[in-house]
């Protein structure tokens, strides 16, 4: 625990009142540091007040939603207080005719789904399915750019978020984007916040574009396929007359799960075309649900580090060979050239797999690391690109208030 913990707690309590501040506990630890305080601001103004105090007093804050991804990035160097966003909750506005929804950052994906499902006469959803499930907050999903199988069709938070409100580390309140999908006014600061691991700003509100929930879906499964056959399949999917919602290869299972959606007539046609191209079997409803729900949490269940990999999609077969050599399990979004792999928490394994993926023309970044892997989160921490990232962090958070050291480009703060 930080020696200044009681002082930090007192400062924050003076600002927010005792009810919004409590002492940090073991369960609140971030990267092994038990915070002096956990603050739970009830609104954006209170977030700004907390940040202003932290900036003035030199405190470090770590933003937390549901806490499902606190091990992402590098462990922050300091953590005087956890800023819990869960009282920033609720849907601000759902405009079904415009397919947009404005949501406070601490709202969970389950809560959002509930509100959207309850809208009479509309079938809309936010097609974002990161493996941490419905308990995670939207703010957390945006700050980590976490994604799941639906990414193949709908993209990540980068593609679904159209606007945000946020608070910088010094308490400056800003907003970017807006409530219309098409909008090029000003810098797209929202894009910078996606995947920034809470190091550039505290996201307080997010506006997302929604999609119509499809009338029909079909899932197909190909089993016991060799790496070479799966590689060929990925290439054939490129020109198939279908619009894939998801295409996931699981290894070492050696399976491919394909999914299409649309009108009932459309999915019948597309599933038939896919079955012919791939040799995959069209699943009945019960089996499809079982396969889909088992897939969406992989490869996150179980011990070990989890890495995100990117590679040229034509090298799928080679990537699967690497998975056999290094990974406990791997799930590949076959049409995108991205994968998630669960690995032993060994710097040597990470370094070897990283080098091998780089030889394919790709890269590896750790999502869920661990103390042993703190120095291995990213491929490189030098170069003019990283210098720009660092300049950005220094410009937006000069005092290093927000999770100092957690993100690439924050090396100076890491001391």
């Amino acid at each position, binding site marked *: 625990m930080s020696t200044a913990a009681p002082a930090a707690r007192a400062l924050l309590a003076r600002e927010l009142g005792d009810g919004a501040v409590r002492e940090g506990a073991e369960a609140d630890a971030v990267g092994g540091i038990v915070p002096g305080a956990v603050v739970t601001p009830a609104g954006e103004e209170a977030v700004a007040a907390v940040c202003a105090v932290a900036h003035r007093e030199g405190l470090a804050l770590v933003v937390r939603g549901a806490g499902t991804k606190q091990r992402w990035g590098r462990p922050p160097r300091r953590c005087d207080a956890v800023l819990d966003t869960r009282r920033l909750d609720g849907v601000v506005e759902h405009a079904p005719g415009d397919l947009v929804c404005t949501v406070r950052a601490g709202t969970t994906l389950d809560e959002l789904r509930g509100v959207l499902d309850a809208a009479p006469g509309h079938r809309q959803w936010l097609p974002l399915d990161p493996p941490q499930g419905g308990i995670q907050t939207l703010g957390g999903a945006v700050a980590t750019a976490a994604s799941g199988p639906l990414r193949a069709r709908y993209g990540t938070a980068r*593609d679904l978020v159209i606007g945000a409100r946020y608070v910088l580390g010094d308490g400056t309140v800003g907003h970017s984007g807006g409530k219309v999908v098409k909008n090029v006014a000003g810098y797209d600061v929202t894009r910078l916040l996606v995947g920034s691991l809470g190091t550039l700003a505290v996201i307080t509100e997010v506006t997302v574009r929604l999609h119509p929930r499809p009338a029909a879906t079909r899932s197909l499964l190909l089993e016991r396929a060799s790496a070479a056959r799966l590689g060929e399949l990925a290439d054939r999917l*490129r020109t198939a007359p279908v619009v894939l919602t998801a295409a996931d290869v699981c290894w070492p299972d050696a399976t491919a799960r394909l999914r299409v959606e649309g009108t009932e007539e459309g999915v019948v046609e597309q599933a038939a075309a896919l079955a012919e191209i791939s040799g995959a079997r069209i699943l009945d409803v019960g089996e499809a649900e079982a396969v889909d729900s088992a897939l969406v949490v992989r490869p996150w269940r179980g011990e070990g580090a989890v890495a995100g990999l990117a590679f040229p999609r034509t090298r799928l077969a080679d990537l699967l060979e690497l998975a056999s050599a290094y990974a406990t399990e791997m799930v590949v979004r076959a049409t995108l050239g991205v994968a998630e792999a669960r690995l032993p928490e060994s710097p040597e394994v990470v370094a070897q797999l990283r080098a091998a993926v780089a030889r394919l023309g790709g890269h590896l970044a750790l999502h869920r690391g661990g103390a042993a892997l703190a120095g291995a989160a990213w491929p490189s921490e030098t170069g003019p690109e990283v210098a720009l990232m660092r300049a950005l962090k220094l410009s937006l958070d000069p005092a290093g208030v927000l999770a100092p050291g957690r993100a690439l480009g924050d090396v100076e703060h890491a001391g």
Partner: protein
Amino acid sequence: MDAAVLDGLRAAVGASAVLTEPAAVRAYECDGLTGHRAVPAAVVLPLTTEQAAAAVRVLHRARIAFVARGSGTGLSGGAVAITEGVVVCLARMRSVLAVDIANERATVQPGVTNLAVSEAVAQHGYFYAPDPSSGSVCSIGGNVAENSGGAHCLKYGFTLHHVCGVTMVTAAGDVVRLGGAVPDTPGYDLLGVVVGSEGTLGIVTEVILRLVPRPPTCITTLAAFDSMESAGNAVSAIVSEGILPAAVEMMDRLTLEAAEAAVHAGYPDCEALLLVEVDGPDAECRTVLAAVDRICREAGGTETRVASSAAERALLWRGRRAAFAAMGRVSPDYYVQDGVIPRTRLGPVLNGIRELEREYGLRVGNVFHAGDGNLHPLVCYDGHVAGESEKALELAGRILDLCLAEGGSITGEHGVGLDKACHMPKMFSAGALAVMERVRHAFDPDGLCNPAKLLPTPRLCGEVPGPYRPHPIETAGLAERL
């Protein structure tokens, strides 16, 4: 300009690629929004990333401001030069460097035109999805700067979604690679903020684009309506039913007449026309098309017609793309506005525009990307009538107020540039603008890279008098716009 600086520029790009003659540099004084003009001190025309970087290093050392420029077709004054500054024109960098169909990527130089990318990959059954109306002349570098859209971004997304990586010369002359051929580059998404930054964060010298397979089926249909409001209702109804067409475009009587006169597209005689395109797997298209037809008739459509051939489809689109230029046939001058509203608010906003027409005694043509609520009102005026151009600009600004009142945006695809920098405080709080300033400062601490664009400055917005105050009204109407 200082002789040593000019020598440095000549050493960087070659003597023949540095222009200083008044007649030569005057050609770079404005972009597609011709009301804003400034003649640069010099123009450099690099052929490679290294040349561009070397030139920028010279300018950075001398603290001379510069403006990157592609084809100069922008409609917000984003590429207007700086007096005493330098234009870095990328138009000579027009090679398609690599096409990798199996990985669905093309690597191009920034001067390559938007349409040339699609042409380069058409033989493989692929295309480049963003399709601004100026696609045959506008450059990819400009598209990156503006985050260009086009009719088909309703379904396919904007330039942001189709640029995987760029090579960029920073304001200090360093060469950085942001993003790349594969997704998820570690670290902050600098590429995400560079796309759409209007040339203020660096000069993009190479671009990796995502290619998209041509859909198996593509059908264009039109629907005629006797009022803009019922056409607007049809658009809302289509989207509300969960249908996402590839494009939904709307034109009013004035723009239809102009476009018809220009290209003879065979549009029906009506108050409002919807042009709807659906694409994808065949069965999906047929189902969706039937639904669109039904919805349009229910909303009061008087005629619906499916293009019966590829030639007819191309003709329908040619009329739409020619709509801006065709306005020259019905009005001596016009100002193209670009605003966005939630598409469910089309009816009230169009009524508001009609009221403004009456208030100002000027005609406003309406042609727009109705599917995503992106309006392009064309404010008609005669620059030779005293005071009319001022009235037109004022009316155009009032349309932005209507957009903002409905929760929309002051620009959907043309950018802020010089033209709308002073409107930014209407849309963004002081805090939000301060954050944008801090982003800009991180990339360009010396303020050399396309200064006075995108963000409001006291000088530009008239809060403080200064020696250089480009007054759009004084020069509007000097020439027809592209």
